[in-house]
């Protein structure tokens, strides 16, 4: 799902800005377009502007500047209840004074759908989230996971083409959350709904989405499918924010097409992929994923550049080993190795040599 032209996009933000106090922008020049049926996640730390974007799309906040389009039509001046966008709220916002069935019937009632049809739709929606037997209960009588399902069913029951979800799984325990992630994506894909999902949980973003928009400082730092985001971060923020990451600071020594040489602070020179760097002589942050680092000579590719390292800590984590090393004067360099039968278990104080493929090592902005 590569970049979509904004003209045939289902949802489009065009040069959108938002300010609450007239002094600072919480959303800076946002451009985003989504095709129909896409599951897009807005990921970012709190205060990065992702929820504001969602609220502007839902109609609860107005854009200070720019245009938001839904299905080609600008919706800036359409009140929320006329936008026809389904929404799942962080705390579900199930109406406590109504039963589950009444909650689900509410959007149909306000749309003046006849009673028989309404009942049928409610039943179908409840069955869809496997809550058919709970129609007569009050939200307070349901567990968190069940409330979550009902909130989802309520957002879908009036068959919106776009569904917004604002950290819907934040209140669930880990196991239930993983289960619900799977259910939500399944549902979204099987119904073919376009979904905008807001979260600050990167695992959620990576496992659920077609594309992830990483927000920081009111801007989209990178908009890409999960694998690209993880394996080819565009800048050091994305590299740091998504997954675990080792950073080495250095200076660009020479650039050779796709690759470059970086001189680290202790003088060692390494090969790296030139992703986002300035000219020769400028500072750069080199980022390497812990699982792409190798210390077993036999497993290393030919001609790999190696660095000396000292083992500071070895942690047994079951499926993987996590080892903390001192590399190039920094002692927070982490490597992860699979717990394979022939894997060497390092000991504290051991002196080893580590290496990686230049393509796994990204030179980014400092």
């Amino acid at each position, binding site marked *: 799902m590569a970049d979509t032209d904004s003209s045939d996009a289902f949802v489009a933000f065009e040069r959108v800005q938002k300010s609450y106090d007239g002094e600072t922008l919480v959303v800076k020049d946002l451009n985003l377009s989504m095709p129909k049926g896409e599951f897009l996640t807005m990921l970012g730390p709190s205060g990065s502007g992702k929820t504001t974007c969602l609220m502007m799309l839902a109609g609860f906040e107005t854009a200070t500047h720019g245009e938001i389009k839904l299905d080609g039509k600008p919706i800036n001046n359409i009140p929320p209840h006329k936008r026809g966008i389904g*929404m799942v709220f962080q705390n579900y916002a199930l109406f406590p004074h109504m039963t589950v069935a009444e909650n689900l019937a509410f959007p149909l009632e306000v749309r003046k759908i006849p009673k028989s049809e309404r009942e049928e739709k409610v039943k179908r929606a409840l069955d869809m989230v*496997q809550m058919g037997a709970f129609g007569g209960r009050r939200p307070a009588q349901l567990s968190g996971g069940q409330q979550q399902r009902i909130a989802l069913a309520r957002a879908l029951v009036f068959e919106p083409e776009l569904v917004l979800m604002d950290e819907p799984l934040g209140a669930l325990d880990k196991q239930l959350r993983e289960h619900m992630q799977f259910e939500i994506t399944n549902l979204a894909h099987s119904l073919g709904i376009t979904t905008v999902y807001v979260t600050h949980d990167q695992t959620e973003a990576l496992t659920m989405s077609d594309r992830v928009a990483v927000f920081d400082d009111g801007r989209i730092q990178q908009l890409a499918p999960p694998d690209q985001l993880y394996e080819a971060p565009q800048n050091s923020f994305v590299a740091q924010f998504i997954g675990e990451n080792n950073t080495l600071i250095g200076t660009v020594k020479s650039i050779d097409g796709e690759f470059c040489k970086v001189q680290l602070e202790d003088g060692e020179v390494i090969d790296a992929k030139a992703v986002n760097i300035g000219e020769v002589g400028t500072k750069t942050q080199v980022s390497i994923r812990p699982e792409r680092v190798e210390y077993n000579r036999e497993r290393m590719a030919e001609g790999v550049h190696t660095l000396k390292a000292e083992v500071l800590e070895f942690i047994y984590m079951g499926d993987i080993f996590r080892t903390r090393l001192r590399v190039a004067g920094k002692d927070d360099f982490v490597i992860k190795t699979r717990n394979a039968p022939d894997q060497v278990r390092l000991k504290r104080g051991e002196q080893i040599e580590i290496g990686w493929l230049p393509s796994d090592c990204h030179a980014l902005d400092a």
Partner: protein
Amino acid sequence: MTDRTTGPDQFTGATPDNALRDADRAEAASGPMLAADGTPLKKSLNRALRRQKMRALMLIAPLLIFILVAFIAPIADMLFRSVENQIVSETLPRTVDSLEDWDHTTGDLPSEGTFRALYVDMFIAAEKKEHTRLGTRLNYEQTGVSSLFRRTGRDVDDFGELYEDQFNDLDAAWEDPMTWARILGDPDWIAEAEGAEAPGPDFVLRDGVETALPTTAEVYSAFAEFTQTEDEDNPLEETPWTLVYTALYWDLMRDGFAYSGPESALVTAAAEAAPGFETVSMQENFVESDKDWGSTAVWSTIQTYAPEYTPGYFLNSVDAQLTPDGIEARPENEQIYGILFKRTIFMSMTITISCILLGYPVAWILANLPMRTANLLMILVLLPFWTSLLVRTSAWKVMLQQQGVINDILVWIGLVDDANRLIMINNQFGTIVAMTHILLPFMILPLYSVMATIPPTYLRAAKSLGANDWTAFWRVYFPQSVPGIGAGSILVFILAIGYYITPEIVGGTTGTFISNRIAYHISSSLNWGLAAALGSILLAAVLILYWAYDRIVGIDNVKLG
């Protein structure tokens, strides 16, 4: 992550849901849960909590006792007065007894025996000065009884003079207090009392004298007791009441009179002479004193109110009265309490509704503004609380009166003609305006505290589901604020229904409440029984409304914050 599609019930593992389900299953399988030592878990839990409960009880004990002594007990005592009626049977015990067989429907006056009983009762009551209190009490039921009792109380002293004179003429010994004491008193008591400093030892009746001279013995005992306790004199030195002479005459005239004992010669001589005495009927005496005694009306009132407990006050409070023929409605021009109760409830409801209408938007704004602004506005809401109630009410008087601020402004603008200034005070309007203002904080505060707990996401959710602003408010926000309306309404209504000062000041005649009438009976007319009955009815009305409210809205839906 698995590919299996799982519903909530197939989802296994340690979720809170499953833990609860497991607990349910365990209980269903094994009956009541047992503690480690085999006792039922509930029992050992109760035991563990008992100490805690005792401590809690100890903590509230001082307040509890204070409330019992200073609040519950006086109120209970006061309410009890609404049915209490011992005064009639205590002041006129013999008359009440004697009236039991009298049938007022025949139109005949009670028998001479009843008049005699009344004479005895009246005489003693008049000596004790209790007859006026009874007169006041019976005057609530029949006007004129009060002055009747006062007049007869004065005259009753003379009724027996006729007999006193004849006994004294017969033998001068009858003038001597010692003669009476020897006939009626215990010899040991006389020995002790003789020469003793007044009032002397308590009077003791001679054994056997009651059989020979029953009435005399009874009234002489009353005389002796009264002399000793009230006048603090020695009965040996006091000439008995004329009542005692009359009683002796009646005893001597009794069929089968026989006497043996001290002074038997004197008594026998008197017994022989008595049939020749000039007599007068007590009925004549009473009717002569006041002709009302000759009508059955007074007598049937005494008979009707003879029981120790009476529904009379309550009937009065609902514009009815207890007559000898049963319960009757009062004449139309005397009915006031029904109107007052209806007016009290109607005006309290109007005030409650006005408070809801005015308070709801304010509470809404308070709940939805940023904290700092909301706190500032809250001070404005609370400001009236910190001002004296009298000041606020008087301020309304200044505002609303015909020469007051509002009228002046209206005249100045030209909306109202100077000659036809609006009457906005000393009527229902004034009371409603002033009380709505005074009670408004009691509506706003619970409303605010409930609204503050309704997250704004509900409104957003409703709008995102397609509801317009009004539907979202009416279907989603309003139902959740109902507990606040309920709490505020109960508070305002119950406060309003018993309000006293404000209606007193601004209510005039048409804007007063039942509580003003209660206050009038407590402090001016001193008809505490009626005040208590009115108060009990008011209390019952509030409790019934509270119960009805609980049935309709549910009291656990009421939140004060």
